[in-house]
């Protein structure tokens, strides 16, 4: 028995939109009462109609091994994927300390960082920083185990809007920060007083008795 083509299209369209899985011709026919089932040619014509209509829409009709399905066009992926975007986490204190030590003492090994921090540096922390492309291995220290030496990268400077490491605030000022959270720190000003001569290498905090 023949259906009103408009209604037939609505039903097939609705089924494809609701199913979320491929439907074959027989399944589409079985949406109808046995006495009103459209011929497979009618279903095919309806599908062609639906496919033509989808031009310029978010979806397209695809034929897969198990039948026909509507799916969202691949070119919309960059926007759609944000639906499942996770909330950015925050970095742990130990990661920030590790990053700070690498920035100020590069090149350093994990052992160097651990010696200063007094606690182990996890592989995850190092991996996260490497994956973020903020640190990289620049060599290996010639001691047993040949530990990797880490330094900061160009991307690190770019992220923090620094043209060179010199623009990091000098350590002398950091002393004052030790317990002052949320202190406004003008990086630019710090830059102006960056040390540029050998003798200024020894700021108050840095007695030359360094452990490796």
């Amino acid at each position: 028995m023949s259906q009103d083509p408009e209604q037939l299209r609505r039903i097939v369209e609705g089924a494809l939109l609701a199913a979320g899985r491929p439907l074959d011709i027989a399944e589409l026919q079985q949406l109808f009462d046995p006495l009103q089932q459209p011929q497979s040619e009618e279903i095919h014509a309806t599908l062609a109609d639906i496919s033509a209509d989808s031009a310029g829409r978010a979806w397209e009709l695809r034929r897969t091994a198990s039948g026909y399905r509507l799916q969202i066009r691949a070119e919309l992926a960059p926007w759609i994927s944000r639906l499942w975007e996770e909330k950015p986490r925050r970095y742990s204190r130990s990661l920030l300390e590790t990053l700070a030590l690498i920035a100020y003492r590069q090149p350093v090994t994990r052992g160097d960082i651990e010696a200063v921090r007094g606690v182990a540096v996890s592989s995850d922390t190092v991996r996260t920083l490497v994956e973020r492309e903020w640190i990289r291995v620049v060599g290996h220290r010639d001691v047993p185990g040949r530990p990797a030496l880490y330094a900061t990268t160009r991307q690190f400077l770019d992220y923090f809007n620094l043209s060179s490491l010199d623009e990091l605030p000098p350590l002398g000022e950091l002393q004052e920060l030790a317990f002052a959270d949320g202190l406004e720190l003008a990086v630019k000003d710090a830059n102006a007083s960056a040390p540029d001569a050998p003798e200024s290498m020894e700021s108050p905090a840095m007695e030359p008795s360094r452990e490796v």
Partner: protein
Amino acid sequence: MSAREPQPLPSLGTAPEQQELPLAVVLGERVMELPADLYIPPDALEVVLETFEGPLDLLLYLIRRRNLDILLIDVAEITRQYIQYIAMMEAMRFELAAEYLVMAAMLAEIKSRMLLPRQAEVEEEDDPRAELIRRLQEYERFKAAAVALDELPRLERDLFRAVLPAPDCAPQRPHPQVDLREILVALAGVMERARLQEHHHVRFEALSTRARMADILDRLREGGFVPFVALFQVDEGRRGVVVTFLAIMELVKEHLIEIVQAEPFGPLHVTGSRADVPGS
């Protein structure tokens, strides 16, 4: 409404806390045959009884059945019918909620009070029927509301979500944002901790030197020898030369690089420390 869950009807005569209530009426009117004025075919009775949602529902049913066009109904008649029904339920071993018995008692009490000589002025609040009517009306509203709710178009029955598979896309996880200040505060914290540990004095060279050390190591990573002078860049000026020189000295001191000279007064070359060069 003492009992939470429906419970088997105790033998009516022995229901303990019901003693002061005129439950004898129930026993007295208990009938084992179907009452003649039941409107339900006997074989459907069981089904109907099971569908009552409680005494109010049963009572409403009885009133509405008798009362399609008549607004007023005789309390004695309704009481009699109600009691017949619960007697039937009991006889058929339905699990009767205690609420049914409480209602039977309430009806019997109303009925008995109606039999007393009426006082001229009865305060409405004192009329035991007022509370019953209020409850019946209230219940009937929500019974209707439940039907209306059930008739609302709802998902999975009348409405279906249009959901299509999303294109393949790796869920993105944005990187955490970091403020430079956070790094400085972290570093300051570490240094403070290190300072408290006397044996860990930390020395920091000028950052420019540190950065240059990393650059030099990076250049030497691929192995081989780099001419000493190639590490200097003239366009950096005197300051740049100083920084590079200090960086090289520091690297040598730390055994990270070696400076080699093939012959006296020959050109200096720099190479990564030996173990760093594959095959050497």
